[in-house]
């Protein structure tokens, strides 16, 4: 636990310590809000032209896009912990100290903390901006219970992102160049399949199965059930999300542990990223 706390602290220093911390959160909130607004404007332009504007979908998009930007911003943390660490010789030192799994986990948690502030602020800011720009108020319910249920969804998301992140970190042990390419693809795939910006029913039928197997799809659905409703959907979605997230996390730990051992035996740990 001491190692984990030290890694979180190091990660927070890396994420927030390079300048005035509220400025970091603001720099994260601005692009996240802009992303949400792009998605809402596309819906608005498209549905206006089709003569079928349904304001209830705006809330659907605000919640989904905010959570998507949250996930996509911190799934980078593990791969960057390994690749930046290899470039700066931090990672081989961490590896020698026998705590690389804890180190990577700590870095993800730190990034999650930073990204959570930005995501929550983006949710609020985009709601205000949409009302100002379009004159439509997304019907979101911000009660203590709905916020607590939303926060629980984010925590379950941390478990899933940690699993995915550990698999990406395992990949980063072996690659020495263009390691950032894979998270870009993962992030794009999540945008299509996680029901972040449109219902999975809009996808061709064989692709539904992919969407349903992703924990992020159920986390976003649970978050929508908490903030938009109906609340009855929440428990089923959060249970499915928890089960899938735990599976992903376990898979991530196993893949990472195996890759770390292989990396040690074959000497990949010292290979610098170019």
């Amino acid at each position, binding site marked *: 636990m001491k190692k984990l706390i030290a890694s979180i602290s190091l990660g927070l220093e890396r994420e927030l310590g390079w300048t005035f911390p509220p400025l970091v959160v603001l720099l994260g909130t601005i692009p996240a809000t802009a992303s949400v607004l792009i998605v809402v404007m*596309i819906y608005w332009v498209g549905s206006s032209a089709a003569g079928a504007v349904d304001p209830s979908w705006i809330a659907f998009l605000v919640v989904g896009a905010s959570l998507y930007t949250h996930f996509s911003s911190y799934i980078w943390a593990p791969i960057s912990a390994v690749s930046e660490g290899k470039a700066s010789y931090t990672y081989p030192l961490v590896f020698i100290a026998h705590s690389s799994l804890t180190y990577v986990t700590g870095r993800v948690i730190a990034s999650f903390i930073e990204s959570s502030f930005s995501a929550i602020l983006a949710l609020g800011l985009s709601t205000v901006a949409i009302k100002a720009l379009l004159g439509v108020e997304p019907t979101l319910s911000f009660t203590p219970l709905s916020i607590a249920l939303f926060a629980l969804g984010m925590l379950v998301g941390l478990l899933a992102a940690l699993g995915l992140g550990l698999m990406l970190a395992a990949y980063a042990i072996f690659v020495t160049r263009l390691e950032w390419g894979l998270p870009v693809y993962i992030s794009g795939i999540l945008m299509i399949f996680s029901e972040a910006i449109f219902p999975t029913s*809009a996808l061709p039928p064989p692709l539904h199965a992919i969407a349903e197997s992703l924990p992020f799809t159920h986390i976003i659905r649970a978050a929508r059930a908490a903030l938009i409703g109906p609340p009855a959907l929440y428990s089923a979605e959060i249970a499915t999300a928890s089960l899938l997230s735990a599976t992903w996390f376990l898979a991530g730990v196993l893949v990472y542990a195996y890759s770390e051992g292989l990396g040690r035996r074959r000497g990949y740990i010292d290979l610098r990223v170019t």
Partner: protein
Amino acid sequence: MRSSVALWLRVAFSRAMIRVLATYGDPLWIVVNVGGPLLTSIALAFLYKFAGIPQFTGFAILGGGIAAYWGNVLWSMAAQLNWDKRSGMLYLYISSPAPLTALLVGMSLGGILGTLPSSLTVLIIGTLLFNPPFSPPTLALALIFMLTLLALYGMGIALSSLYLILGREAEEVNEALYEPVSFLSGIYFPSIGRASPLPLAIQAVASLIPLTIGMDALRRAVFFSEGVGELWPSLLTLAVMAQASIILGLKALNYVERRGRVTGDILVALR
């Protein structure tokens, strides 16, 4: 005078060729660069379909094609000298007779040619998947495309001089700029004009970004078959913006370089 012009041209050509050879000599670069704009444009095309207007999926596909360039301007132009500073390359540039302006213009030309495969891949795959109704290519389209890229890379040159004096913030500023400029400039939806959902005041601010004028004109040429006759105000505005951004960028770079050589802080790498 003649030798300095020849040096400038040789430096610009060499820097452009490094970019071109790096991209075309290593297909993995294209695969890696195409992921973000391709998958984003596919997701947004699905959103247009879901919103009930499949004809507009082309907006998302065209946006993805141009987003590849916008990403290249930010990450491979604006931030490049800053990265060169951190990796020690800037020491070599400064101590050699190579003019920085030639390096940046060469980088821009190389960037335009090097990003072309990524941009085309987005357009081709997007078109195959969603079959949006594109008008046939015209002279107006070619002119708008070239002027938009000129203005965009002019912005890149201007930003690179700013980033030269930044430390790690350069990357954070890039991250913070990408989405808001994509939103205001309407890469994926019309942010100015009659179809724009934005208030007039915001449209006015957005119109100050060359990419906004370029995207609006590109959409009108590609999806509404407008020609030079209808698009000449946009062409004129883009030409002025392109010229202004390149001149401003080169002047800013000259100033930062001159000041940095005098004070010695141009090579200070802050982490």
